[in-house]
């Protein structure tokens, strides 16, 4: 019992932001992410339905998956009719598409962009590389499992997944949101220390705030 209490205390504690200089520390918040509990059931269902209708995705081509986003955005597949639109800024987006492999340099930006996104936020991981390393399983510079660094809602396999697969992925994500299961953000908040530990293990020059929002 005592041990649990310590954990509770730790969770209340503010973040250290060790990677920042003293001057920068004043510029960033040191609060932890909080779990957002669902509100009243019917109201939550309505909210989930509404969320699923309008998915704004972050236009960040992190890997080669970005090449199939372009056809998806344009007239042949026309994703806007499904309520999906690309946004240039993380602040406006609710879906983060990890386009395949993430190199060490990119995963740092992925973490930062993900944390900057407003909730509710969802992650779709494309391609083999995000699942188990894909064809870069032995590369010294790409990570093998994206779910160790940020929570993932939907996996789409393929190399690269075609636009049709991506659309199917979006449909599945919508289902998941409507069912109220797309709680990656809460998972991130709950296991924040674990995620942070994994992230800091590979990103060796951590010069950004611990939780960037």
């Amino acid at each position: 019992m005592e041990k649990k209490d310590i954990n509770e205390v730790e969770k209340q504690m503010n973040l250290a932001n060790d990677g920042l200089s003293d001057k920068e520390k004043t510029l960033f918040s040191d609060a932890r992410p909080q779990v957002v509990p669902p509100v009243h059931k019917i109201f939550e269902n309505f909210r989930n339905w509404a969320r699923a209708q309008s998915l704004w995705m972050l236009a960040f081509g992190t890997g080669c998956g970005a090449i199939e986003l372009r056809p998806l955005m344009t007239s042949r597949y026309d994703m806007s009719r499904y309520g999906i639109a690309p946004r240039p800024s993380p602040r406006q987006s609710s879906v983060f598409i990890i386009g395949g492999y993430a190199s060490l340099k990119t995963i740092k930006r992925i973490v930062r962009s993900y944390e900057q996104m407003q909730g509710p936020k969802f992650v779709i991981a494309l391609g083999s590389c995000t699942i188990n390393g894909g064809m870069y399983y032995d590369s010294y510079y790409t990570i093998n499992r994206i779910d160790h660094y940020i929570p993932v809602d939907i996996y789409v396999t393929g190399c690269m997944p075609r636009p049709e697969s991506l659309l199917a992925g979006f449909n599945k994500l919508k289902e998941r949101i409507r069912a109220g299961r797309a709680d990656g953000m809460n998972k991130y908040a709950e296991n924040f220390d674990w995620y942070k530990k994994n992230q800091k293990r590979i990103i060796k020059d951590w010069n950004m705030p611990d939780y960037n929002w």
Partner: protein
Amino acid sequence: MKEISKSKYKNYVADRSKYPLLKDGKPEFDLNSHMFTKIWQGPQHPGVTGNMSLELVINGDEVIDCKTHVGYLHRAFEKLMERRKFMQCFPIVCRICVPEPDTNEYCFSAGIEELAGIDIPEKAKWIRTLNLEMSRVASFLMWIGGQAGSLGMGIIGQWTVTMRDFWLDLFEEMSGGRIYHMYMIPGGVRKDLPEGFELRVKKVIKQTRELLVDIEKSFLNNAITKSRLQGLGFIPPEMVEEYGIVGPTARASGKPFDVRQNNPYLVYDQLVMKMITSDVGDAYARTLVRFAETILSIDLIEQIMHKMPKTGKIQAKIPNVLNWKIPAGQTYIKAESTRGEHGFYIITDGSKYPRRIFVRGASYTHAISVLEKLAVNISISDTAALMVSLHTCPPEIER
């Protein structure tokens, strides 16, 4: 396509009076003076091609200094290939450049064949050439969309990317893959062309030609395009050799450098083609050259379809791929990609694994040395257009 003639307008010369003093060709600035701001464009920015970033120092909206940062797509291909058998390398090489994987496949296969002493059948050569030209068209279409998009003309991108998708359908039919074709293997190609392929290619060519006419009207002969691109990123001919500039970028500056014509490979010596050059050297000239190259590639596809042998073997005999050893040697194979001279430098040492494979990405210098030089003293709103006009492709830089 009209002849690209000498332009009637003058080269753009920036008004230098309000800029800081130059020292060794670089402006001097002091970030603490509060006159300059440092901003990062990318990697999470819709205005950069692919996944790279520009570290810009700006004064107002003028760029004072630019540094490019690459490595966001680094996957260590060259290292990985050192621990894969020859045949196992071939699925990995096409990943080096996403919009145009086939040049990589060709260079790798041709290099392996040369070192192993394999002659590929005549028909395989024709199919490879067809494949390369098709991928050029697809890549150029995407580029036109990108260049238009960088000027805010999203609709052009909507058209060209969709048209590219029709070309990808052809690739899918031919090779079984949309983006990564993995079609040319050491020894030849993997499948014969499907039945009725020629007709479908002709249909797509017809559509593409119609679209290109519209693009010429709406994008090339457009007041906005001209005012934004003319004079932007001027590359004098002297700079071409100094900076190792290749491909359409070099040709737009009056340097007739095209690997297909200077050092013909595959069946390019049997095709009729013209060197497309312009002696203006700015972003608009590059746009025109690339536009003309798209049409040239379509012409070449028609020629190939016409001249190609209808029957024949598509694969030379190769040893058991699990135990394939290649005698020691080195070679440098180059091919013309949409961005220019794309090359593979391969060293073998008689074992089952390549000793060293180096990929010379065509836009290696374009995106770094050249971009850093050209981006100085332009408006920050033009950096995206400049970057696209140099046709940078980050994955082939960092590999």
